[in-house]
């Protein structure tokens, strides 16, 4: 995986050519950095990685991580060690909509395995795989704090709770019709209960 290949700055610069935050994103990044004392801009790393993931195709390439390192004025390895530790950062390309089905206790007690099997069958993929059209990636997740409204799945910023097969049908159809990349940072989240 990616960021092991730092070393040659020139190489990275050329590959980085297309990677630059939009003005809006850069403004948000600067605002986040200002939340921390001077010299502690590394604190902004987790939120800035979320923004980078949303901006650059839903995952963090080595080039994206190098770019984030440059923006925060920290070493690339500091970015990679964080990106590889936390589950919400994708270090490989994913579909536009990453479906994360919670599978821990309360969700399991309420049929999470059935939901998972249903989605696998409906999309024709297994957990960890992406549909051929690049629309959906299916994942399992550990407790997402929706135990009282189980079973549930998360997609981007949205929580879909009290799932039934019918609800899953509608959720997948709606996402497909919309055809947009879904991010944790989205402001237009659509939670369904």
């Amino acid at each position: 995986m990616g960021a092991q290949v730092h070393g040659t700055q020139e190489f990275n610069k050329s590959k980085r050519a297309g990677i630059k935050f939009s003005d809006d994103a850069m403004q948000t990044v600067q605002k986040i950095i200002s939340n921390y004392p001077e010299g502690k801009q590394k604190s902004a790393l987790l939120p800035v990685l979320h923004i980078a993931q949303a901006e650059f195709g839903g995952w963090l390439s080595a080039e994206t991580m190098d770019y984030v390192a440059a923006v925060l004025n920290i070493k690339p390895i500091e970015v990679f060690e964080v990106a590889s530790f936390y589950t919400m950062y994708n270090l490989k390309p994913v579909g536009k909509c990453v479906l994360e089905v919670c599978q821990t206790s309360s969700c399991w007690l309420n049929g999470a395995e059935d939901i998972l099997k249903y989605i696998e069958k409906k999309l024709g993929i297994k957990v960890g795989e992406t549909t051929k059209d690049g629309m959906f990636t299916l994942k399992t997740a550990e407790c997402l704090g929706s135990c009282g409204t189980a079973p549930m799945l998360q997609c981007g910023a949205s929580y879909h709770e009290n799932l039934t097969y019918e609800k899953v049908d509608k959720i997948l159809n709606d996402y497909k019709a919309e055809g947009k990349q879904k991010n944790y940072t989205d402001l237009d989240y659509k939670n369904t209960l």
Partner: protein
Amino acid sequence: MGRKLLIHNDKVPGINTLEVYRAHGGYSSVEKALKTMTPDQVTDEVKKSGLRGRGGAGFPTGLKWSFLAKPEGVARYLVCNADESEPGTFKDRYLMEKIPHALIEGMITSSYALGAKRSYIYIRGEYFYVARIIEQAIAEAYAAGWLGENILGSGFSHDCCVQVGGGAYICGEETALLESLEGKRGNPRIKPPFPAVAGLYGCPTVVNNVETIAAVCPIINMGGEEYAKIGIGKSTGTKLISASGHINKPGVYEIELGLPVEEFIFSEEYCGGIRNGKKLKAVVAGGSSVPILPTELILKTAKGEPRLMTYESLGDGGFITGTMLGSGGFIVMDEDTSIVKNLFTFTRFYHHESCGQCSPCREGTGWMEKVLKKFLDGTAEESDVDLLWDIQSKIEGKTICPLGEAAAWPVAAAIRHFKHEFLEIAKKKKFDDVSHYNRLNKIHA
């Protein structure tokens, strides 16, 4: 009907806005503290209230605050732990989503007591939309002068920011949280030094749970002594309980500590009894890490006394016959539930969430998951029960942070109280997954 101090207004339309929150008495603790009290007086009221940390450990909050080092010229921080990730727990999410200003009000009043000019709310990344709600509320609070320079002309200035995490249960451990807030991997620190001496950026820091901080508002409003009158003994005040599993009415309930467990499970005011007319089999009373108890031990203590929702009563009998109030993540299981499979979901969770720093936890959680998988596959031997016991006993107490215990305790308790279920699978060489089979169709029929 118990008293409610935290979420009594949760159904009021618009309570998420500053205007409506204020109209219902919001921010009065800030007014009272900043205009009429010294910081030490605020801390004293919290001490008198007997408030204990609502994140799970139950450590007295006033005492924790009094440990905060106050060297001249060094910044102090208050950090709110909103990294709610303990399976079965969703109370902080509810509080922040419905009444975000209750947290912000608590942050300001608490920061005044601690002399913290800046505070952070570290919220789990998966709760991104909740972070948006909190950010919105913070913006409102700035606009109305509750945050920023010279609040209410008191000379006290305060800034509060939200930080989102990246998806890691371990960041609920306070030193891992601080590492994460500094933009690093969530590896817990070796203590001492404790955060009260060297926390965020090496500065004195208090880390408190969302509910703990929100509880400071009613404590200041009503006075610590009045607050302490609610509850029983050293379990004072109210507690948010996240109820889930096979109950008729899952959700977040605010209870007065001291409520009988039986009433909580079966009364219409709370969980409304077991779903589909089934019988109660077991309860995990305080989030996944606390020991599971079978019906006879969750409703009554080993001495035959009614079990109450207090730190002491739930803990009565130690881990042999008791459990813990923990985070208040109350998971209820009906008679069809396989304790072995439920345990598997817990152990898989801890394996996934181990940060990997300490080998007993890193290796042990994975090993336990593998052994439990053998039970689900029907390939386990009877001796595997002893093996599981052996592994958990070698994790407990041998790690930097309490994730080791959190992973070991559920395994020990499941074997202690439900050993027959493990042995039955090993004897039959077959696991009948009746507990899960077609559950969803039954529920939504």
